[in-house]
């Protein structure tokens, strides 16, 4: 059976090493207990193409998948857990949003209302756009950008200087899907 040429994907169950990378990526953002909760009773598959996408499926969906998979490859399935990179999983924003308050404070910055709007337009943020950020001085740290209702807006790179100046470079935000046009 022909697969969609624009998205030639190979579906597989993660190896032990891949599973480790998936857990490691999730554990950066949420507690181990939450990771376990998220993955309990779920089947995990990786769609390998240009990128490696990890999906989780309930048993009902898994049953359907096993009926279909020998004949056709899905385009999308279950819950998109995130993209698997060489080092770890980059959790999808929707997963992090669903986990809400469970996301660790150390990897989260909170925007003001103006900050939220700017970030969703793909722009960088500075002190005046932020309500709170982790008290770390590191060269650069990847953070989840949330609004003051705790809703995940995207990923940014946090830079904080000894002078107290903070900047967030926009890496990915929810508005991106809209700007892309579909």
């Amino acid at each position: 059976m022909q697969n969609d040429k624009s998205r030639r994907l190979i579906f597989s169950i993660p190896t032990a090493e891949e599973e480790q990378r998936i857990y490691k990526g999730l554990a950066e953002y949420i507690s181990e207990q939450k990771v376990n909760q998220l993955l309990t009773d779920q089947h995990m598959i990786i769609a390998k193409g240009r990128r490696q996408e990890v999906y989780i499926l309930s048993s009902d969906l898994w049953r359907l998948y096993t009926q279909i998979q020998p004949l056709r490859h899905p385009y999308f399935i279950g819950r998109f857990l995130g993209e698997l990179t060489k080092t770890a999983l980059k959790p999808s924003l929707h997963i992090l949003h669903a986990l809400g308050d469970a996301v660790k404070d150390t990897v989260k910055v909170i925007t003001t209302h103006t900050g939220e709007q700017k970030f969703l337009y793909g722009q960088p943020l500075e002190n005046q756009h932020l309500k709170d950020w982790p008290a770390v001085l590191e060269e650069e740290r990847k953070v989840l950008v949330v609004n003051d209702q705790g809703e995940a807006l995207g990923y940014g790179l946090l830079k904080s200087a000894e002078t107290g100046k903070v900047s967030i470079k926009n890496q990915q935000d929810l508005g991106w899907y809209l700007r892309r046009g579909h």
Partner: protein
Amino acid sequence: MNNREAEQLAKQYGYRQYMIERYLELFGSETVQFLKGNELAIPSTIRMNTLAASPTEVATRLQTKGVQLEPVDGLPYAYRVRQSTVSLGATTEYLLGYYLLQSAASMWAVEALNPQADQVVVDMCAAPGGKTTLIAQFMENKGAILATDISRDRIRSLRSNLSRMRVENSLAIRMDATQLPEFGIQADAVLLDAPCTGEGLIPVDPTRKQSRITKDITILANVQKRLILAANQLLRENGVLVYATCSFAPEENEKIIDYALQRCPIQIVDAGLPLGEPGFTAPFNQELDESLHLARRFYPYKHQLEGFFICKMIKVAA
């Protein structure tokens, strides 16, 4: 006499003449009202996503942003937009998947299907996913939805909507849905929201007054026939099939159902919708199955909705 009238109305309202000739035959003395109805703006509706947030909380958030909403009778998750100072396709709440802009007519199609948690549901022509995401909402993200669409571009939008709207129980495939029976699935419910000429969308897209010719109806009717035969094959006994289009043409609606009734062990049932006109049983003087009066037709001039056709069927023992 009809020809002269058709020519004059076609000119006045900007349609191709063949369309008016057909409307005159179908709607008789109500044709002018029908045409006037197509000129009126249809209020936009949004559908709250109960999979992601509480509808009342989202409504309150939108109201503080200058969006005036009012509930839609019979659809507890739907709100009519009375006025808005913001673009509803670009708010934070939209990006977070808390609601979708969706016509109420589309929502009624899913109400007719009434999918249940833990079922296996097939949405044969699913992109961009307005109805699939509502199906998931009905199913509370349980069970499984197989969503297919043939279009490469539209399947991307489907993916994006499934993701944004937090749908967790779907499997989407880009494929010709007439080939779905190859999987040997026995679905509890099938939605066939068929590709159609889309005349019913004239109130929102007046270019449709001119964009189709009669041949399009014939071509699409052939596709619809193949799709409905496949839909029947996918269903288990007692399974539910809903056929829907946004066309006024009986060739794409009642005649497709009549064709399927003659070939498949299916029966039309009352969809239980509180609105809509009965389906035609003898359009253009052609006698069709009597039970087609149970199908429902929506008209802009009568229901303040896009033109739509919904027919609910169940599969019986062969």
